[in-house]
C-alpha cells in the first residue's frame, strides 16, 4: 500500500492512515526521499493522528527517515502521536530524542516555519 505524499509550497505533508506493515513503511521511506529530491521541499510533516500502534520496527523506520531527510536538507516534524502510542514507545525503551514533534498538523507547520525561516 502506497502512502500519499502531498506538496504544499515548500512543504510535504503526509498523513499515515493505514496500519503500517513493514513493507509499506519501507516503501514510504523510499517514496518520501524521492519526493524530497524531486520537489526540493525543505520541510516535511508526518502526521500520525490515525496511527494507533508504533512498534520498534516502525519506530526505527520513522527515526531513520527523519535522519535521512535531514541529510538531504529537509527538516521533518512528526505530529499527532496519540497518548497510548507515546506511552507504549517509552515503555518499549524507544525515546526518539533527535526527532522534532508537535501536537498536531497546525503546530507542526508553525514549528517548521520557525525552524526554516528563523
Amino acid at each position, binding site marked *: 500500500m502506497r502512502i500519499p505524499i502531498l506538496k504544499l509550497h515548500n512543504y510535504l505533508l503526509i498523513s499515515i492512515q493505514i496500519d503500517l*506493515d513493514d513493507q509499506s513503511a519501507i516503501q514510504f521511506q523510499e517514496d518520501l526521499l524521492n519526493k524530497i529530491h524531486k520537489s526540493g521541499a525543505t520541510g516535511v510533516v508526518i502526521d500520525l493522528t490515525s496511527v*494507533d*500502534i508504533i*512498534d520498534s520496527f516502525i*519506530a526505527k523506520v520513522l527515526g531513520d527517515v527523519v535522519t535521512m531527510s535531514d541529510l538531504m536538507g529537509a527538516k521533518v516534524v512528526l505530529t499527532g502521536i496519540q497518548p497510548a502510542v507515546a506511552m*507504549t514507545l517509552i515503555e*518499549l*525503551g524507544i525515546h526518539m530524542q533527535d526527532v522534532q514533534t508537535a501536537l498536531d498538523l497546525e503546530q507542526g507547520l508553525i514549528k517548521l516555519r520557525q525552524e526554516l525561516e528563523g
Partner: protein
Amino acid sequence: MELKPCVNIRQEWDIVGARQLGREKAKELGFGTVDQARIATAISELARNIYLYAGTGKVYFETIDHLDKKGLKIVAVDEGPGIRDLSQVMQDGYSTSGGLGAGLPGVKRLMDTFEINSEWGEGTEITAVKWVR
C-alpha cells in the same frame, strides 16, 4: 475445550494480522486504549521475532476469565534456531538483525507477566499475560 484462536506467522503481513486480532481480543475483554496499544505492540514484537529469526511460527491467544480477574494470554511459538543466550536477548539495545534491540525487554515491560523458554536448536516459546485492571 474451546479451541484457542491462533495466527500463523508465515509472511510479513501476518505480523499486522496477529496484532489486529490481539487488539480485537483485548477490546472484547474490556482493556482500555492504552493497554490495547501495549498488547498490540507486544504481539507485533513477538510476531516479528518469529518472522525474522524462525521464519514461521504461531501466536496463540487465550482469554483468562477467573472469578477475581480477567486477562489475555499470548503465546508465541516457533521451531526456529532458538536463543543461545537468554540473558543477552533480554538486554535493551541488543540485536543481531540491525533493529533497535527493544523487542523482548520491551515486551516484558509492556505486559504483566513474561516467560521465555528456548532450547538452542529446538525453538522458542514465549508466554506473556496482561491483566485487565
